[in-house]
Structure formats: structure tokens, C-alpha cells
């Protein structure tokens, strides 16, 4: 029964390929915008004034403490109650961005705070301006420290993009579910869906490792 090739080539793969496109359309913008949001939020939490810092910390704690599924349902089912409407794709994308910004900000903040005061002093003692110090000393160091965590976050995002199915967004998971329900062949279909995610996650992990190796400097990176 596992060798039913026609079933795969005619039913499963076309549907999953369709879903893969939607999944990619979720992951890529959510990853990019979420990461940028995480940088802004992380900077605010590391260097902002007390109000900004308090707000940033509260936001991060809340979004990290509540399951993504709940956030997603909130945005899709609950916000219309107060007059804000999203389609399934928009709701999924928005909640992924909001949530991954919170997680990214944690790594960005940690990386920024890990830079020793002496590094900044030394740059100033050489006559660098504040802007030069940030651009040439702080950012290159913080980026290397944040890379493993943020990369991990992207890998998580790939997996959690499957939650978009909960609000009827037809991505990989959703397409798979439809085929599985129609044919009641859950094992085979979800093996295939799992394989798609495995490929995505493995590719992302490779890319991350490659990037880490490219930017490796003795004294930085994973201890």
C-alpha cells in the first residue's frame, strides 16, 4: 500500500507543491520582517529609555508566554469582533511576524548586552564617533553572537508555519490535510508532508551552518 506511486504523483505531490508555494510565501516575508522587527525591538530593549524598555519587555514576555496557536486564533477569529479583519493568509503572516520578532529580540538583546564596555571605550579612545563605534565595532560583534539563536528561530518558524492551517490557510499542512481527509490515507500523505518540512528545515540548517562557518572568528560563536 505504501508503494502506490500513482496516488503520490497524481494526488499528493501536485497538492503539496501548491501548498509549498504558500508555505514559502509565509516563511520568507515572516522571516525577513520578523527579523527586522526583532532587531528594532531588541535595540529598544537593550538601549531604550525606561518606558520603551518596559513596553518591549512586556511585549516579549507576553508573546513568548502564550502559544502561537492562541495568538493566531486571536488575530483571525477575535480581532473581527473589534472591527479588524484579516484573511487567513494575512492573519497567519501577521501572527508569525509578531511572534518571531519577540523571539528574535531576545537574541538580539542578549548579543548587544554581551558586548563589553571596554570595546566601546577603546573605540572612543581612538577617536571614533558614536555612529562609527556602532557601525564598525558593535554591529559586527553582535551579529555574530546573535546568529545561532536567530538562525534557530528561522528553523522554528519553518515548522510553526504549519499552524497557519489552523486558520484555514491552505499551505503544505492544509493541502496535505485535504488530500488525507478525502482519501483517508493519513500515514502516506503525512509522511510526504513531513518529508517536505524535513527538506525545508534541513536546507535552512545547512544554510545557517554555512553562514556560521563563513563568519566564524576565534573567540566567537558557539562555545
Amino acid at each position, binding site marked *: 500500500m505504501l508503494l502506490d506511486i500513482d496516488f503520490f504523483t497524481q494526488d499528493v505531490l501536485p497538492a503539496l507543491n501548491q501548498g509549498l508555494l504558500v508555505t514559502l510565501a509565509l516563511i520568507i516575508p515572516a522571516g525577513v520582517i520578523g527579523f527586522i522587527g526583532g532587531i528594532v525591538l531588541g535595540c529598544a530593549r537593550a538601549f531604550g529609555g525606561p518606558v520603551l524598555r518596559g513596553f518591549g519587555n512586556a511585549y516579549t514576555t507576553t508573546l513568548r508566554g502564550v502559544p502561537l496557536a492562541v495568538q493566531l486564533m486571536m488575530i483571525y477569529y477575535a480581532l473581527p469582533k473589534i472591527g479588524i479583519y484579516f484573511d487567513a493568509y494575512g492573519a497567519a503572516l501577521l501572527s508569525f511576524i509578531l511572534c518571531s520578532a519577540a523571539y528574535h529580540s531576545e537574541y538580539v538583546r542578549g548579543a548587544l548586552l554581551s558586548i*563589553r564596555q*571596554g*570595546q566601546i*571605550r*577603546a*573605540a*572612543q*579612545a*581612538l*577617536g*571614533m*564617533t*558614536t555612529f*562609527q563605534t556602532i557601525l*564598525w*565595532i558593535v554591529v*559586527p*560583534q553582535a551579529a*555574530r553572537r546573535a546568529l545561532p539563536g536567530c538562525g534557530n528561530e528561522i528553523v522554528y518558524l519553518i515548522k510553526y508555519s504549519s499552524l497557519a492551517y489552523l486558520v484555514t490557510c491552505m499551505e503544505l499542512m492544509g493541502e496535505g490535510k485535504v488530500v488525507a481527509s478525502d482519501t483517508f490515507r493519513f500515514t502516506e500523505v503525512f509522511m510526504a508532508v513531513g518529508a517536505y518540512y524535513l527538506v525545508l528545515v534541513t536546507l535552512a540548517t545547512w544554510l545557517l551552518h554555512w553562514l556560521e562557518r563563513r563568519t566564524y*572568528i*576565534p*573567540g*566567537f560563536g558557539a562555545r
Partner: protein
Amino acid sequence: MTEDVLQVSHISKQLGGKPILQDCSFTVKRGELKVLIGPSGAGKSTLLQCINCLIPPDSGDIWLEGTKLDRANKAHLCAFRAQVGMIFQDFNLFDHLTAEENVAIALRKVRGMSRKDAADRALEELGRVGLARRSQLYPAQLSGGQKQRVAMARALAMDPKVILLDEPTSALDPELVGEVLAVIRDLAQNGMTMIMATHQMDFARALAHEILFMERGKIIEQGAPDVLLAEGCNTRTRDFCCRLLEMGA
């Protein structure tokens, strides 16, 4: 020869209501090596960092070659710092840059030199401190003494008018102290103007033109080492040095 390079007048600094520095004044002449000594917590490090405003002093003025430092003017402050070298106790090499890049970065970003010229100059300076062959290593791959010598090269590459050394050897293992002191001795003999906080009394006695003795944020004695450390004289400096020697023995 007797031209004043750096003039520090009436510097005071409070931290959390506690006075750290009280009315410190002195003048450094070209080619002079001044040594700051005193018990830990006396304010030596704060005084040095106040001179280039890494710790902004509450009051007092700094003059470099007859020009008063305008602390409120960012551009002026940066230009001032570029002419005043600083060596830190804990090196503070930029961890993400190789030895060569550490020396070159300020040349490129502050002095505006081209990448090529900056690299050439960096290699030259690293050669001067005996590290030309380690130019491509990162700080994590260097020993403490090597790190401090790279830091010296980084400061020297900026052609500073004066160098401030904040206990440059106190974070080093004893066997590595010599290589750093050798570089400083070389500089002193070639007429570099320097102010150095240190606990290396033999070194101070041999090379310093003047010793400033600090205690509780004040400069309480100042004079040539022969005078302050002379046999039989009753100075606080000599007292302190004798105690240091006893502890060492």
C-alpha cells in the same frame, strides 16, 4: 624640549556623591614619562580616563599643545582623542578583528586612510612591537602580552602626541610583563610623551622623569624619582614603595 604637550588643570570628579578625583593638576612636557603611583582605588585609572573624557570630569580643563579641549563639541572631542593614545589594563582589542585590522581600523575610519595604506602602516607598527608574524591572528589566539603589544601598536599607529597607559602590565602573567615593558622602555628612550599608571616600581625609578603619587583622589606628592625615593627621605611615596617591596619579598 621644554614645550608643554598636555596640561591638566583642576580636574574633579564625583561618582554617586563620593569624590573620586579632587582638583588634580599637572603638566606634561614633550618627551616626558610621568608615572602615576598610589594604592588601588586612589583614582589613577579615573584620572587617566578623565584626560580623554572616557569618563567626563565634573570640572577642570584639559589643554593639548595650547588648545583647550571643548568637551561639548563632539567633533573636537573625537579629534582630541585621536591624538591621545590610550592603553587599557585589560587590552580591549576589538575581538572580531585580526591584529592587523585592529591597528588599521582607526586609521581607516578616523584618519580616512585607504585600506591599502592602513594595512601597510598597521604591519609596520606591528613589526615595531615584534608581532609582524602574528598580524593575521585574532585576539582570542594571542597571549596577554601579545594582546597588549597589539594595543600599543594600535595606539602608536595614530601618531599620538601623548599616550596614556592604565596599568598596562597588571593583567599579565609575571613572565609576560617583560615583553610589554620592553616596548614601553623603547618608546620612552625614543622620546614618546607618556603618562603611565603602574605598580612596577623598578621600572618607574629607572625611567620616569617625574612621579605623581596619588591617594584618595588627590595628587599628594610629585617630583623626580631620585628625590621622592631617596634613601632616608620621609615621603609618602617612599613609604608606599617600601610596603610594596615588603609584600613582594
